[in-house]
C-alpha cells in the first residue's frame, strides 16, 4: 500500500491509486517451422493384394407358376312357360328361415352308378330342395315332410330306382314332385306313367294338386284315339294303365316311341318276369326307369329280381342270398316305414278277433275238411296244388258263412262292432277277398249305410262311391274287395278296418289297412283281423307271419330270411299232405 493511501484513511476519503507495469519482456527468434506447416504432406501408399473369394449369394425364385385349374360349366335351366293357374291351396306353406339352419336342408346326392365327375358335380351343386321348392314359380300346396324331401332327393338323380315306402307315406307326391323338377330342369321331356286302371283318376287328381302346370294326357278311348295319343299328343306326361299297355303293345313298342322316364306304379305287377305285363314294360324304349311299390317283396326274393329286370336287367339274379341281394340293391331302393318317419302319425292298433265257429259252421267245416282230405289223398299221383287250393278256398268260405244255414260267427262279431262304430259317428272299411261274401254282408249290414267298392262296381261309379262315403254322415261302412280297394285310395277319415277274411299275402293286407292309416289320419286306426280258431285260417296265419319276417329281412338288410313264404310244400302241408315234388326230392 502506498503512503498516500495511508494518509487518506485518516485524513480524507481521497483514494490514491498506484499503477504497476506487469508486461514481461519478450524476445523472438526465427525457427524455420512455418514453411513446414504449410507444405503438402507426403503420403506413402502400400498396396496389398486381396486373395479372398467374392462373397456368395443365394437367390430364391419368388415368381409363382400358374395355378392349374379344372372347369365345369352347367346349362342354364329353361324357364317353364306357364305359371300355375289353378286356385291356390288354402293351406299355405310355412316360410322357412333363410340363413340359420343348414342342417335341415336336403341336398341332391349322386348315386354310386353315376361315375362321370361332371355329372356328379351337377347334382351336388344343385341348391337344396327346400330352396327350389320354395321359389315363387314352384307353388306347393303343402309343406312336404322331411322324409319326403329325402325321397325326392333320392329319385331325382337316379336312372334306376325303387321307391318302396310303406303305403300311406306319399310315394305319389314324391314321384310327382321329382318328375316336376326334372321336367322343369329340362332333363325330362317325355314321361310315361303306368298304373293299375283304377288308379288313373287318382294320379290325375294328384298331378293337379302337386304339379298343376304340367300338361298330361291319359291314354284312353278307342283304339284309333289311343294310337293318336301315343304318337302325337304333345303333353310331356302320358298316363296309361297296365291293361291298355297290353292292347297297345304294337304302337308302344314298334313305332319308335322313346321315353326319358317310365314310372311303374304298383310295380309288383311285374314281379313275374314271364308275364306279358313284365315283358312289355321291359321292352319300352326309355332312359330312366322308376318303380313305385310298397311291397317289392311279396312272396319271395324272386319278386325283387323281377322288378330289377325292368330297372337294370341282369343286375340281380335268382339264387342270390337275401343278404347279398340286399347289399347289391341297397343304392337303388329307398324304403321307409311309418314307425320310422312319422312318429307323430296316430297309432295303428291291431285287435285280432279270434273266434270260434258257430256249431253249424263247425259241423260243415269238419265234414268238408275230412271229406276233402280223403279226396285229396285218393288222387294219389294226380294230386296237384290246384286241388289243394280248391279245398283251402272251400274251407275259408265256410269260416265266413255256413253254406247251409248262413250262420257266421264273424258276422255276429262284425255287427256288434259296427253298432259301436256307427253310434260313435265313425266310419269303417270291411275287406274280403270274395265279392259274394261282400254281397252277403251288404244285405245284413244295410242299416249302417253300407256302400260297396269291388269288381262288380263299374269304374265310372267308383269315384262317386268314395265321395259319398266320405261326405255322407249316414254312410258308416264301405265293403271292399282286396283287389279293388287295396291300392291308391285315400280313406284316412276311417278309424276302423275289418279284415273279414285274410288274404294270402301280408303285403296286400297291409296295403288294405293303409287306405285308412296314412298321412292325414285324424286319429288312431283300429284294425280288426278276424280269425276262426282251429281252422285253416289259423294255419295260414302262421305262414303269413313268416312271410312278414322275410319281407323285413330283405328290406331292412338285417338278416337272411328264414323262409321263402308259401311254398308248394307248405300249401300241401296245410293238410299234412306231401307234394309229389318233395317226394321226388327226397327220393333223389
Amino acid at each position, binding site marked *: 500500500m502506498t503512503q498516500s493511501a495511508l494518509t487518506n484513511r485518516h485524513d480524507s476519503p481521497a483514494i490514491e491509486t498506484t499503477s504497476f507495469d506487469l508486461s514481461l519482456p519478450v524476445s523472438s527468434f526465427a525457427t524455420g517451422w512455418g514453411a513446414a506447416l504449410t507444405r503438402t504432406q507426403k503420403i506413402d501408399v502400400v498396396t496389398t493384394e486381396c486373395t479372398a473369394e467374392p462373397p456368395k449369394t443365394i437367390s*430364391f*425364385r*419368388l415368381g*409363382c407358376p*400358374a*395355378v*392349374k*385349374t*379344372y*372347369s*365345369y*360349366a*352347367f346349362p*342354364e*335351366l329353361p324357364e317353364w312357360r306357364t305359371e300355375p293357374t289353378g286356385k291356390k291351396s288354402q293351406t299355405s306353406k310355412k316360410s322357412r328361415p*333363410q*340363413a*340359420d339352419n*343348414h342342417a335341415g*336342408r336336403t*341336398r341332391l346326392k349322386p348315386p354310386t352308378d353315376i361315375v362321370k*365327375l361332371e355329372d*356328379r*358335380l*351337377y347334382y*351336388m*351343386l*344343385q*341348391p*337344396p330342395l327346400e*330352396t*327350389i321348392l320354395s*321359389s315363387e314359380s314352384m307353388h306347393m300346396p303343402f309343406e312336404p315332410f322331411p322324409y319326403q324331401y329325402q325321397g325326392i332327393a333320392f329319385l331325382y338323380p337316379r336312372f334306376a330306382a325303387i321307391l318302396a315306402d310303406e303305403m300311406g307315406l306319399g310315394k305319389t307326391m314324391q314321384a310327382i314332385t321329382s318328375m316336376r323338377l326334372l321336367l322343369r330342369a329340362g332333363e325330362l321331356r317325355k314321361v310315361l306313367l303306368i298304373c293299375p286302371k283304377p288308379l288313373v283318376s287318382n294320379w290325375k287328381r294328384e298331378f293337379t294338386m302337386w304339379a298343376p302346370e304340367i300338361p298330361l294326357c291319359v291314354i284312353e278311348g278307342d283304339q284309333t284315339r289311343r294310337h293318336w295319343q301315343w304318337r302325337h299328343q304333345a303333353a310331356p306326361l302320358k298316363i296309361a294303365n297296365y291293361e291298355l299297355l297290353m292292347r297297345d303293345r304294337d304302337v308302344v313298342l314298334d313305332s319308335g316311341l322313346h321315353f326319358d322316364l317310365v314310372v311303374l306304379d304298383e310295380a309288383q305287377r311285374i314281379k313275374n318276369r314271364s308275364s306279358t305285363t313284365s315283358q312289355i314294360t321291359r321292352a319300352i324304349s326309355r332312359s330312366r326307369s322308376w318303380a313305385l311299390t310298397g311291397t317289392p317283396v311279396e312272396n319271395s326274393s324272386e319278386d325283387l329280381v323281377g322288378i330289377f329286370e325292368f330297372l337294370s336287367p341282369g343286375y340281380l339274379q335268382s339264387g342270390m342270398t337275401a343278404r347279398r341281394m340286399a347289399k347289391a340293391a341297397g343304392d337303388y331302393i329307398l324304403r321307409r316305414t311309418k314307425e320310422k318317419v312319422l312318429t307323430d302319425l296316430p297309432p295303428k292298433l291291431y285287435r285280432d278277433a279270434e273266434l270260434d265257429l258257430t256249431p253249424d259252421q263247425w259241423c260243415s267245416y269238419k265234414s268238408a275238411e275230412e271229406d276233402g282230405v280223403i279226396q285229396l289223398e285218393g288222387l294219389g299221383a294226380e294230386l296237384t296244388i290246384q286241388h289243394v287250393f280248391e279245398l283251402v278256398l272251400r274251407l275259408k268260405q265256410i269260416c265266413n258263412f255256413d253254406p247251409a244255414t248262413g250262420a257266421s260267427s264273424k258276422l255276429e262279431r262284425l255287427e256288434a262292432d259296427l253298432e259301436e262304430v256307427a253310434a260313435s259317428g265313425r266310419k269303417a272299411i270291411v275287406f274280403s277277398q270274395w265279392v259274394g261274401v261282400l254281397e252277403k254282408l251288404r244285405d245284413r249290414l244295410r242299416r249302417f249305410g253300407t256302400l260297396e267298392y269291388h269288381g262288380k262296381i263299374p269304374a265310372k261309379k267308383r269315384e262317386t262311391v268314395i265321395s259319398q262315403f266320405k261326405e255322407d254322415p249316414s254312410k258308416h261302412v264301405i265293403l271292399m274287395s282286396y283287389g279293388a280297394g287295396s291300392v291308391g285310395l285315400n280313406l284316412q277319415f276311417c278309424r276302423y278296418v275289418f279284415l273279414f277274411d285274410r288274404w294270402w299275402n301280408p303285403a296286400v293286407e297291409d296295403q288294405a289297412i293303409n287306405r285308412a292309416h296314412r298321412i292325414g289320419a285324424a286319429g288312431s286306426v283300429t284294425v280288426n283281423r278276424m280269425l276262426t280258431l282251429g281252422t285253416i285260417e289259423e294255419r295260414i296265419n302262421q305262414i303269413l307271419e313268416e312271410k312278414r319276417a322275410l319281407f323285413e329281412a330283405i328290406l331292412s338288410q338285417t338278416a337272411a330270411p328264414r323262409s321263402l313264404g308259401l311254398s308248394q310244400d307248405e300249401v300241401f302241408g296245410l293238410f299234412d299232405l306231401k307234394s309229389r315234388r318233395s317226394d321226388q326230392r327226397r327220393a333223389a
Partner: protein
Amino acid sequence: MSASGSKSVPSVGFLTVQEYTDLGLIGGYLILNAVGRPLEFHCTAPVRPNRAQEILYGPTLAPFLYGEQIGQTLVAKGKSRPMFVCTDVEPVLSVREFVSVPVVLITAGGDESNRQHRLDASHAVPPAPKSRKLCEFQLAHHQAAVAEDHARDRDNIVEQWRPHTEAVDLLEPFSRLREAIEEAQRGATRA
C-alpha cells in the same frame, strides 16, 4: 380380370379356399344364377407355398396365396361376370386388388369370421393379419364386409342384391362348394 361379361344372366360368384393337411390349398369358385342354380364350377389343383415364400412373404403369405394366386386365377376362369363375388375366407378378400368385380366376405357370426386356415405343421401359413381394415355391413340375413380400400363396393353390392334377397341364402352355397371341391379332389386322386 378376365371375367368380363359374356352373359346377361344375373349371377353371383362364391369363392373359397380349402386347406388339406397333406396337399396344401385348393380353391373353388362357383357361379350361381339368381335363384341358386349352378352355372360354372372351377377349382384349382393343390397349391403349396415353398419355403422361400413362407419366409419372405411373412404375414402377407396368406393374402398372397388366397387372393393373388388362387382367387385371381379362379375369377379369371369364369365365363359369366357375376354381380359380385362372395367369400367365406377373409384372406380371399385380397383378390379384390386383382379383379374388377366387388368381393364381399360373408359370415354367419363370430365363429366363422375367426376361422383359421393353416397348412400342415411344417408348412404353416400364418393367419391373416388382423390389421386388415374391413368395412362391415348387413347383407340380407348375413354379416358382410368388404376391404376398406374398396368401401364403395358395399353400396353396389347391397343395391344389386336387393331384388334377390329372398331367393338365395348367401352362406349356403359354400357347403355345396366345399363338397364339390372334395368330390373333384377325390376324382383327381382316383384318376
